[in-house]
């Protein structure tokens, strides 16, 4: 297991982060035009002074090394549009809210998705299957930026059951979490159905049934472990989608999270701030993908053995 983790970390995680950091840094620094030139014409001297103040007048390799060094120390540079604030500060204050939203939405998507998938898999081509797959199909076709406003309209503004903005208390969480998580619940339901159907058709399940185990034990005690593997593999892409999907949900429900920070930074062309967010998201994704791989290896011993054989 340790060797597996080691391999994942050094062969995949670290190169990925390095590529991401280099690529995005070069993209930002080599793009035509100064980051300060966007709004109004500034006098030559002011521009030079600004460039010097932010260290942008140095040769590129030096800038690159210095930026990477600072990143390792946790310093993501200054914000170009919010004077006096550092990127680390801006991100740090918004990150907890976004993480909370993301984790809640992922949990919701997993529970709803897996239950729908199981419901479909144990009733193949019958009523339960058609209903849950119908729901999943509709879910896949309603993106968060349509579902969010729709829910806000019905449950917030018309029925007045739930608040439609802010993040103060659990009642505020309901609508954003559903808006964000539903599309992934739908994907997960489809994957869980496929995985469970395959697992339920295997010999050991027939044995379990022949032994007279209850259907609940067969499904939840035996088949689930193998059947949710496609779902676990999907967790990496799902987490990436949730992170970015949160942008629109945070904008719609006015939640003070990272999504709003990055969208405003992009609109204002605040390069260091966008760069910092990209690096942070990249790191989060790499960590998450590594966790998913470990989880898969725990669920499926074959993957562990393969890693052993390779070395």
């Amino acid at each position, binding site marked *: 297991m340790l060797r597996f983790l080691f391999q994942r970390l050094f062969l*995949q995680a670290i190169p990925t982060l390095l590529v991401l950091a280099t690529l995005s840094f070069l993209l930002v620094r080599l793009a035509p035009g100064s980051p300060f030139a966007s709004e109004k014409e500034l006098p030559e001297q002011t521009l030079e002074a600004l460039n010097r103040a932010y260290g942008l007048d140095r040769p590129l390799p030096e800038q690159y090394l210095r930026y990477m060094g600072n990143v390792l120390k946790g310093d993501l540079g200054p914000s170009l549009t919010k004077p006096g604030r550092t990127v680390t500060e801006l991100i740090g204050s918004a990150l907890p809210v976004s993480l909370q939203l993301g984790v809640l939405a992922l949990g919701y998507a997993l529970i709803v998705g897996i239950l729908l998938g199981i419901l479909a898999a144990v009733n193949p081509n019958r009523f339960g299957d058609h209903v849950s797959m119908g729901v999943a*199909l509709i879910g896949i076709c309603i993106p968060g930026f*349509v579902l969010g*406003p*729709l829910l806000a*309209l019905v449950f917030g503004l018309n029925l007045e059951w739930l608040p439609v903005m802010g993040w103060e208390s659990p009642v505020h969480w309901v609508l954003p979490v559903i808006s964000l998580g539903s599309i992934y619940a739908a994907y997960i339901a489809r994957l869980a159905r496929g995985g469970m159907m395959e697992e339920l058709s295997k010999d050991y399940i027939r044995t379990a049934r022949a032994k007279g185990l209850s259907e609940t034990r067969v499904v939840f005690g035996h088949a689930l472990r193998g059947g949710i593997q496609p779902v676990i593999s999907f967790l990496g892409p799902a987490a990436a989608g949730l992170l*970015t999907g949160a942008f629109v949900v945070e904008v719609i429900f006015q939640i003070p999270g990272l999504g709003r920070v990055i*969208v405003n930074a*992009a609109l204002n062309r605040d390069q260091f701030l966008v760069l910092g967010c*990209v690096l942070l998201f990249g790191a989060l994704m790499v960590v998450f993908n590594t966790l998913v791989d470990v989880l898969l290896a725990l669920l499926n011993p074959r993957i562990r053995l393969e890693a052993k054989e390779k070395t």
Partner: protein
Amino acid sequence: MNSGGHSLGTDAWRRLWKNKAATAGLFLITFMLAACIFGPMISPYSHEEMDLLSAHQSPSASFWFGTDELGRDLLTRTLVGGRISFAVAFASTAVSLLIGVTYGGISGYLGGKTDAWMMRIVDVLYALPFTLLVILLITVFERSLVLLFVAIGAVEWLTMARIVRGQILSLRQQEFIEACQVLGYSHARILFRHLLPNVLGTVIIYVTLTIPSIMLLEAFLSFLGLGVQPPMSSWGSLIKDGVGAMEDFPWLMLVPGGALFLTLLALNFLGDGLRDALDPRRGGEG
């Protein structure tokens, strides 16, 4: 093709026709496309001309889906916005197709070390947060429609490359490729004339999956104000405008949202149907 035989293509068509959901999807998509292309031409209203006297009208006989805050007919605006949404989806898919098929084809055809390295690069790129890279591209360059095509296409080619590479890898072992090599054909000729046509079915299936995901990405970016810029509008930016006035005039959000929903639904039906039709081995599950 002769004496009662069927080509693979005819067979696939027949299977597709038998699938009711897929046929419905195909009709709906054709209808949406035709409506977006020709609708604005026959509409009595212009999509940009303002008429403040008829601002914020509810749906009625003269304005089927009502009007927006500047008195512009929402139906016409939605159809014109659909043109942009479809255009971005098709153009970006074409870009991703071009890069993905070429890259995957070359990687699979060459095999060995080159292939291993080319796929290693894809693996690393795969782990990057793409939507953010698109946002980064949009941040550093001027926001324009062409950039949107290229940025989306440039990040959406990876899966295509993987799929094509896998197929080519198994195809190139077969005898007809050996025959081509014996005949002394150039590598390019073998790859583009003999290998790639054989992966067409798989590519078509994947394209029907790529188009909706690109439409979603475009709508997502436009919703955030990072995609299509005014005065142009797409479904994403119309939804965004609609959300602002949702409390009093819900149809402004519901109409473009509904159009996007129906299109995605149709594309999903069609994609599932095509997958079953072009890949009979998979059967009807999934």
